[in-house]
């Protein structure tokens, strides 16, 4: 076969022109900003498998920056967001973290989605003295004075979800979780709270993130006959579990309580017949009807449209994390890392969409509200709230007041 050969030069030239234009544009835009703007870094996966979590977080931090600038900026200066798409790649997290710290010299970095990404960049910011905010709910245990974690941890949410499930549905639990740190540690906490509540764990199963077939598991669950299934499944592949569960006609037979369902738009993507009745516990729901929450969701939807995925705790905590940092800077009257850290450690609080959010000095985590909600017709019906929940899990192992030099993630020994 003699394949046809197109004119290489012509194609190459036009391709180069296109690429050059596309790549140069954002650089120009960036330089056009005021030279003395305060730079704030954002590192989120906006493409690749984890991109679905990053989109809404990216939207809310942009909203927070714009609101701040509209109100006169910070310390009399405008704030400029320096954003990199880490493309769901750990190497790019390290690379861009170095870039933000050394080249862009940002005042603070908000970002990281998976725990692995956080652990990759946390040491970089420690080494190059850059303040870092991790705004995602996670398994708990990070103890680092240069880092603030503003998402919920198991003591704040799992500790509400499991007792509710035991009281409502019965004492026998079957735990299914994603096979990595978050899932494994969350499953331990679930087990602890089940036993604390006088229940029994029939089995705990872990699923690699690329598992899409759940027929065998659904059979095993029926064989065990639990009164509730506790799920910490993660990602769009695992969404298949809820669909296959419903397709097998199990949905109305055994209820599901989850620590992850709905974080990435599941509530909108799968049918009400598959999701109705699932109970979750997070630090925020888009449906919260407080004035602060409605104003926030209205602003986000006005700016980014209805195409944006569900505004979950991830997006809300990112917004609140930025506001906490801004408050810290205002109080310190400076961008200096230590001054801002010390200001934040005085217990700075903001009234965010989720309610009052307060920095806890000892753990560098936050005290915040937790909520219980039930899925109903593509919405979350928030039926219970728990004000001012402390990060008790991390507090059990981490005290930065006594040991300010610590910089590690404890694997909390979950005792029964």
């Amino acid at each position, binding site marked *: 076969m003699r394949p046809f050969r197109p004119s290489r030069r012509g194609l190459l030239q036009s391709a180069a022109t296109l690429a050059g234009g596309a790549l140069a544009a954002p650089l120009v835009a960036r330089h056009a900003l005021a030279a003395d703007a305060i730079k704030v870094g954002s590192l989120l996966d906006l493409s690749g498998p984890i991109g679905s979590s990053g989109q809404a977080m990216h939207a809310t931090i942009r909203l927070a920056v714009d609101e701040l600038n509209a109100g006169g900026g910070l310390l009399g200066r405008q704030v400029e967001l320096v954003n990199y798409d880490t493309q769901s790649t750990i190497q790019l997290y390290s690379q861009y973290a170095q870039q933000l710290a050394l080249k862009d010299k940002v005042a603070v970095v908000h970002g990281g989605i998976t725990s692995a990404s956080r652990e990759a960049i946390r040491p970089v910011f420690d080494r190059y003295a850059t303040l870092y905010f991790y705004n995602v709910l996670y398994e708990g245990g990070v103890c680092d004075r240069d880092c603030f974690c503003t998402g919920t941890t198991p003591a704040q949410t799992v500790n509400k979800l499991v007792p509710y499930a035991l009281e409502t549905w019965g004492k026998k639990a079957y735990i299914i979780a994603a096979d990595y740190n978050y899932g494994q540690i969350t499953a331990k906490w679930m087990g602890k709270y089940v036993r604390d509540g006088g229940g029994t764990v029939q089995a705990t199963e872990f699923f690699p993130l690329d*598992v899409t077939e759940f027929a065998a598991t659904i*059979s095993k669950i029926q064989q065990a006959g639990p009164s509730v299934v506790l799920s910490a499944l993660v990602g769009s592949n695992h*969404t298949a579990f809820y669909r296959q569960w419903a397709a097998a006609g199990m949905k109305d037979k055994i209820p599901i309580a989850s620590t992850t369902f709905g974080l990435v738009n599941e509530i909108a993507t799968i049918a009400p017949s598959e999701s109705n009745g699932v109970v979750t516990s997070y630090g925020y729901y888009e449906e919260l009807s407080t004035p602060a929450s409605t104003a926030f969701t209205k602003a986000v939807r006005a700016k980014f449209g209805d*195409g944006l995925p569900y505004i979950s705790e991830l997006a809300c905590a990112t917004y609140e994390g930025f506001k906490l940092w801004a408050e810290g800077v205002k109080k310190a009257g400076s961008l200096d890392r230590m001054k801002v850290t010390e200001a934040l450690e005085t217990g700075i609080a903001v009234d965010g969409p989720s309610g009052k959010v307060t920095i806890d000095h000892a753990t560098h985590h936050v005290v915040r509200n937790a909520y219980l909600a039930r899925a109903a017709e593509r919405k979350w019906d928030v039926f219970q709230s728990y004000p001012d929940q402390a990060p008790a899990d991390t507090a059990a192992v981490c005290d930065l007041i006594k040991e300010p030099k610590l910089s590690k993630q404890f694997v909390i020994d979950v005792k029964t």
Partner: protein
Amino acid sequence: MALTGLILFNIANSIAVLVLLSLGLGVIYGMMRVINLAHGEFLMLGAYTTVVSANAGLNLWVAMLVAAPLAVGLFGLAVERLFIRFLYGRIIDTMLATWGLSLAVVGLITTIFGTTVRGVSAPFGGFAIGGYQTSVYSWFVIAVAAAMAAGVWLVLRFTKFGLIVRATMQNPDMAAALGVSPQWIYMMTFALGSALAGLAGGVLAPVSGVSPVMGGAFIARAFITVLGGGPAIVTGTGLASGLFGSISEVATFFTTPVFGQVALLLAALVMIRILPQGITGSGLTGRLLRRSL
């Protein structure tokens, strides 16, 4: 007893899913020695076609069984005309091009539909085997997989098109000398393989998490199944699906999902060590099945 029935049913379902995932890839690889690394994205496009057209009001069955294979088949045709036809005989280049294509398609779908899309749910509901609930939809999945495999086999074995395709596969120059255009056959084969992938994606859409990156979860399994099957497209893919599907399902049921996955991979390793040309290409099975399709 009921439990045994349930496990057997699950095994059948698991085999059917593997056949669905890999047959399209097997047709393209078996006929043309083109490893289509964008195969997972072809499945994803099938799922998207189903979901988007069903949400737009099209009947679910039409969306799944007609729209999905049609749309992805046409897409495959375009891909073949635009890229693949320049690259025949260069197996590495086709892999690179299709890998690039897979990235670009993921990017394109994300740009158009966002990172998530409203799915469709499985029709039918559940039924009971003894005291155990399971899904009626699985019957449908099994039926489609069986029909797909039988259809490809019948076309290859009994139609004139099948005869020409087999001849071209064996000796393209001779076929060309006899007045067949290998270019045309390759084009049609690629479109057929793509359509099969589209159909599979459509059928699996109601029981999968539909997202732009869903193809990534399928490609490794499909790849291993096709190569494990060896040169005979239908028999090989069918046997390899049967073997790997049973092993992973049984291992998952009696141990853990992690071990189920590792067991599948280990089985593939051991099998390739014993039968280096795949099930239908070497060893006793190879001799028995040498003339199969």
